[in-house]
């Protein structure tokens, strides 16, 4: 099954990243249409009708989110979440690198739809070279009058600012992103109030992912019905899926939502190397509960993956083949969330810390099968009890690995105990790990 390229159309044409190349392909036509032919409410309802769901992880209807912003004269803001830090996700990077104007046009149209005068693209600091590309494209768009105090002489003002982060996974969480953008430590805020009511600088704020906003010009150009002609009833459109791990052709593939997951992993990405089998796979980044070989025929949609007990998330598939140790994979996963926990709330700060230590004991053979029950219990106590979803993001995959691969965990404990009775090497994890709150 081939790719279905909408956002990725002509993706490798060198001219696409320039304003001329983008305009030659019809670029900024949607912005003109949005300015001259459509009212903000029509824009929002068209986005809602299209069924476009957020591509950053939560999968919430973009049009509906936009409609939550109050009307009126107060200052409103748009934030594009380009912090893409979820392990396994790298789609926004390629979209911004190769087609930055598609995102800029999407930001401008979304700003019109909600009446925002300032739009920010919060890009992770690690993507320095991509931010440079974005800066150049924004300068081109200002020069051509698509951004600024008086866009295309209509009197409408939209300013777009590229804001570089400085390295913190938590800043991809929408309220932490707002704090970081306000020049603070990137700690999540208690919700409600939701950002749509009280977000950046206390004003109503719409926050959307890069891929979500990149879809907007296409919906304005071609209509909601065209968009709905792709995908399933509850998962409309195409999706750029990042496939990585144990596959032969890792990379970004744009697919129509609803094709079998097997087609993505084997058909497009080539599957695991010759002679190996899929053992476990994360369907939606490292925060998604893992699935197994038996789940490969699931249609790749929000609803089917949710039904299977996992999630589509950011659309990032990580494949682990039969050479990968699941306990070690669980440790790697937990260690990441431990490092990135901001430390503001206890279940996440302590839960990620102790889970990492317990999994380390499992891998070193110092654990007993009873520890597995404790690990599973800790995950249950984290889920739903944190300020933001970072704690849950560790608890869900780790919990699923212990549940689905319990035999392997027990075998690992036993094998490690027998291999080295009494002379266990000291693990590097006995040393304090850096956390988001400590310096580089």
């Amino acid at each position, binding site marked *: 099954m*081939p*790719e279905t*390229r909408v956002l990725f159309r*002509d*993706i*490798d044409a060198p001219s696409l990243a320039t304003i001329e190349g983008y305009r030659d392909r019809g670029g900024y036509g949607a912005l003109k249409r949005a300015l001259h032919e459509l009212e903000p409410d029509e824009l929002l309802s068209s986005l809602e009708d299209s069924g476009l769901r957020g591509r950053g992880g939560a999968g919430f209807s973009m049009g509906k989110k936009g409609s939550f912003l109050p009307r009126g004269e107060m*200052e409103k803001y748009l934030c594009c979440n380009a912090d893409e830090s*979820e*392990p*396994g*996700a*790298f789609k*926004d*990077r390629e979209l911004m*690198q190769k087609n930055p104007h598609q995102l800029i046009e999407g930001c401008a149209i979304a700003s019109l739809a909600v009446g925002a005068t*300032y739009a920010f693209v919060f890009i992770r*600091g*690690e*993507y320095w*070279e991509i931010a440079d590309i974005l800066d150049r494209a924004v300068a081109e768009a200002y020069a051509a009058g698509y951004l600024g105090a008086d866009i295309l002489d209509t009197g409408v003002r939209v300013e777009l*600012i590229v*804001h570089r982060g*400085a*390295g*913190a*996974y938590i800043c991809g969480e929408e309220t932490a992103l707002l704090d970081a*953008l*306000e*020049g*603070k*430590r*990137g700690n999540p805020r208690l919700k409600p109030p939701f950002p749509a009511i009280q977000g950046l*600088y206390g004003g109503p704020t719409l926050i959307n992912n890069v891929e979500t906003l990149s879809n907007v010009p296409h919906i304005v150009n071609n209509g909601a019905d*065209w968009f709905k002609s792709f995908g*399933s009833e509850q998962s409309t459109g195409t999706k750029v899926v990042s496939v*990585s*791990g*144990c596959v032969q*052709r*890792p*990379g*970004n593939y744009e697919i129509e939502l*609803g094709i079998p997951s097997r087609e993505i992993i084997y058909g*497009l990405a080539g599957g695991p190397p010759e002679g190996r089998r899929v053992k476990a796979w*994360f369907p939606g980044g*490292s925060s998604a509960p893992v699935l197994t070989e038996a789940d490969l025929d699931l249609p790749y949609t929000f609803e089917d993956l949710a039904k299977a007990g996992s999630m589509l998330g950011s659309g*990032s598939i990580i494949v*682990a083949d039969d050479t*990968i140790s699941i306990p070690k*994979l669980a440790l790697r996963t937990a260690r*990441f969330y431990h*490092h990135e926990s*901001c430390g503001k709330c206890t279940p996440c700060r302590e839960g990620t810390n102790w889970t990492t230590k317990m999994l380390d004991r499992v891998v070193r053979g110092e654990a007993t099968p009873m520890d597995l029950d404790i690990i599973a219990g800790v995950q249950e106590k984290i889920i739903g009890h944190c300020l933001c979803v970072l704690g849950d993001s560790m608890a869900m995959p780790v919990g699923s690995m212990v549940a689905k691969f319990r035999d392997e965990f027990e075998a690992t404990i036993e094998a490690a105990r027998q291999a080295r009775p009494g002379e266990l090497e000291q693990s*590097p994890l006995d*040393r304090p790990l*850096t956390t*988001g709150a*400590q*310096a*580089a």
Partner: protein
Amino acid sequence: MRPTDELSAAERRELIASMRPEDAEGVPALAELDVPDELREQIETAMARYPQLRSAAIPALWAVQRHYGWCSPEGLRQAAAVMGVTPAYLEAVATFYDLIATSPIGRHRILVCHNISCWMNGADELLGAFCDAAGADRDDADHHGASSADGEFFVKGFECLGACDIAPMASIDQRYYGPLDAADALAAIEALRDGDEPLPDKALALRPAAGGPDPSATERAPNAERPDA
């Protein structure tokens, strides 16, 4: 000052008693500091871009780091003076973020991703190869990062850099390269020592989309009939 972990209980009590709010440093007077013109200009430009000036905190930290190689206490005071905030405010922000260095680090910054996809493809070995080639401590590199004795290199095992398609990979002086092996690590370090661009043919910037240039056989015209699924 010594880390608080190393203080005795009595020393800690003394330290806490010595910290009184009225003694905290206020906003430094700009006139009393010798802020380099270039740094001041960069921070003021950033402040002018945002509706609220504190949003310029992270851009200001980047500017300090570019100028001094790290966010030194003096650099932070200078930035605080330009922004009209206290140095403590900027330090609090600086210590939160992984890319901001609050202690001196090696000149070339090499971040080796050791998250899931890169780990499955040999990231631990790659990190070791970079450490060996650069002369950085392997164990420290995996935690807080390690600088080489000559001050040329800083190597750190980093969390997901968002480039799992080129696993195992590294960010070298803020550019992405991959997939890399031990020989590439050695070649990169040598190129950096000679002042050349490391591994130009492994740069992410040059990589085409995984599916090839144009497999768009199923491009659908606007308002086309929905094919039977």
